[in-house]
């Protein structure tokens, strides 16, 4: 949590010597609080003050990068508990677990599933971000075989190395040295041996404890051993504990500025039933997980989780609008019907969804009304006969269709006359009031 100007002032020399370029220490403190100047401008500030101010300026949840290159993913840096306050920053990393006890064929299938998981959804490329290799056998050799396979077949995919055995870690980490891997499985018992291994491979450290108290102590220990890039696991595996621990960790970090828990959280949600596992992954996405480790990556599951993650991590402050243009629904041709609506994104989603449902290919003209719904836009004078006529003329749709018929939402039936007056040669047809009337409306229309 950022300090206030007065709090910062208390830490300054209070000599008003002006060397910082401000008339008083207080004035300088105020500017610092607003992040409009930097502390190094004051030559006389104490080491103690530097330390406190430096810590306060650090983000409440430490930023950590998993992987390197194009496929690297960022974690942490979150600043709020509820997405309406401010955008959630770094979307939850989805990781697929591969165990060294699984058949080689299964392991290969999973590597392939990750490599081919990429989907384009409304302009964003989404994928399973990481592979978590788990030393379930407890044997070094089997783990090494799996690690080699992954390093060779998926060299660019960020890797989580999961083992509590320093021997296994030592053998395997070399394969991922300098690749931004995460060495998970560091506990109170093995930290002294494990942390140097992570450090040598320039990896971050994933710690596991059995409760939040122990977890706090453990991160302090790892930090004292020289690694600060930490990802935390409270040991929660059941839904209520995942929710409780993730919430308390996020609150402690953000509201209490409690540094020992100011790290990204990793959740393990593996379950027998992939459908049910998806619900737990969804819990992680909504409630503060920076990494979710899963046991499978079916296509339908990926699609649902990518979508949820994208939705939860969108910027709530960006107005709910879609771009003004003529959208194609299906493969419309020169005879396909033309409908118009406003660019409130929900209106667009609902109307386009219903047109799609009708299975009638159509042109959907979406007009910029500053993100207002049809009725509100009409009431605000943004969805008027003249403006609609203008938009249709300028859109160029006239060169793409043969007919001259525009279907308008039933709520603004009143606009029919005004549009026809401004849009010469066109007929305006009044469509249904609610979008759910569109399928039957459109089907009748093309049948006629």
């Amino acid at each position, binding site marked *: 949590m950022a300090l206030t100007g007065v709090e910062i002032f208390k830490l300054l020399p209070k000599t008003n010597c002006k060397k910082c370029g401000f008339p008083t220490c207080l004035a300088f403190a105020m500017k610092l609080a607003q992040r409009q100047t930097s502390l190094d401008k004051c030559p006389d500030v104490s080491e103690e003050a530097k330390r406190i101010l430096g810590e306060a300026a650090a983000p409440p949840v430490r930023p950590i990068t998993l992987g390197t290159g194009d496929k690297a993913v960022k974690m942490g840096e979150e600043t709020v508990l509820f997405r*309406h306050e401010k955008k959630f920053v770094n979307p939850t990393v989805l990781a697929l677990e591969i165990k060294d006890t699984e058949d080689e064929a299964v392991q290969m299938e999973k590597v392939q599933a990750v490599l081919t998981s990429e989907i384009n959804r409304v302009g964003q490329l989404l994928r399973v971000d990481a592979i978590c290799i788990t030393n379930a056998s407890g044997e070094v050799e089997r783990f090494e075989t799996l690690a080699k396979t992954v390093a060779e077949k998926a060299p660019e995919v960020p890797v989580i190395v999961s083992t509590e055995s320093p021997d296994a870690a030592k053998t395997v980490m070399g394969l991922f040295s300098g690749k931004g891997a995460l060495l998970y499985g560091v506990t109170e018992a093995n930290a002294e041996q494990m942390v140097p291994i992570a450090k040598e491979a320039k990896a971050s450290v994933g710690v596991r404890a059995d409760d939040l108290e122990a977890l706090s102590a453990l991160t302090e220990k790892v930090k004292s051993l020289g690694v600060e890039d930490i990802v935390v696991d409270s040991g929660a595996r059941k839904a209520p504990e995942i929710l409780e621990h993730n919430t308390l960790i996020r609150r402690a970090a953000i509201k209490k500025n409690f540094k020992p828990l100011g790290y990204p959280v990793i959740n393990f949600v593996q379950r027998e039933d992939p459908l049910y596992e998806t619900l737990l992954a969804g819990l992680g996405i909504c409630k503060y997980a920076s990494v979710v480790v899963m046991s499978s990556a079916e296509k*339908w*599951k990926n699609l649902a989780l990518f979508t949820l993650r994208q939705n939860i991590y969108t910027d709530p402050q960006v107005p709910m609008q879609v771009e003004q243009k003529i959208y194609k629904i299906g493969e419309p041709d020169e005879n396909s019907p033309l409908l118009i609506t406003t660019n409130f994104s929900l209106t667009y989603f609902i109307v386009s969804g219903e047109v799609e449902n009708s299975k009638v290919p159509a042109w959907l003209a979406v007009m910029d009304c500053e993100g207002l719904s049809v009725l509100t836009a009409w009431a605000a004078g943004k969805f008027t006969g003249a403006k609609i006529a203008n938009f249709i003329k300028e859109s160029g749709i006239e060169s793409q269709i043969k007919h001259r018929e525009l279907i308008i939402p039933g709520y603004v039936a009143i606009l029919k006359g005004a549009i026809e007056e401004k849009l010469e040669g066109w007929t305006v047809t009044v469509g249904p009031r609610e979008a759910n009337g569109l399928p039957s409306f459109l089907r009748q229309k093309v049948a006629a």
Partner: protein
Amino acid sequence: MAFTPPKESFRGRVYPVTIGTEVQETFGGENTLPFHRFEGEIPHRPLISYEIQDVPPQDWPEVVREPYSDVSDDPVKWAQFCQESLGAKSITLRLIGTHPDQKNLSAEDAVKVVTDVLNAVKVPLIILGSNHIEKDAEVLPKVAEASKGRNCVIGKAQEANYKTIAAAAMASGHKLIAMSELDINLSKQLNILITQMGFEKERLITDPMCSALGYGIEYTYSVMERIRLAALAQADPVMQPPMVADVGMYVWKIKETQASEQDLPEWGSLRERGILWEALTATTLMLAGAELLIMRHPDAVSLVNTFIDEMFA
């Protein structure tokens, strides 16, 4: 640095709402955020209500039509199937056939279906109109009267038609769903207007408008979170009714629950995709505050029930 769990408690509490007569169900009543049993009381689990409708579900996609193929030609059989075979704790009867663009069934037709269904099942009934402003204002008062004394939920009252619907729900002793379009202020305003008519706020259920995963769920999610925070942290009495998420209707009309795997191989199996879409939309909205969920697919319902079981274990 010693760790003190930063638990939070709130001044406000969500009203508990009990529905039904012979068999009753209660939802709401908590004084903490969704599933936050570690720091507050949640006396009741969220309630899932199975959606059926007055006319055969021709526009439902195959995946969700199939489980009801033997019963969905008759709302009475359908309701009984939900109660007996699926163990439904509540049933939602949507009078979609009354919509002028559908079959334009009359209020009398609707009364008959409602009465028949009420006579056939014991679990609490939620009765929804077709979401056509004028038609709902005509149909819902009649069905409210016909089901008088059965402690049903009637919906949905909206800004343009709440007066007649709320008056009827009040006169017949029902609970009422008040729906507004994804805006906390509109939602508050509508609840105020309805309570100003003398309708008790403890009998209201707020519907901030549902959206499916991928189709605006983040708006519903945040409006729900804000309403819930207003109820708990600010203890705003008009924001304290429980919330409903009308999940099935919004989920089973989008592309993700309809497009075949042949058409979109990168989306995987349609059956799992559809069921998951409904279940994940439901759990996500429960995490935002919904206590009443209206759902369609039996497998999605059981997934969500497993999730609730785990949360309350």
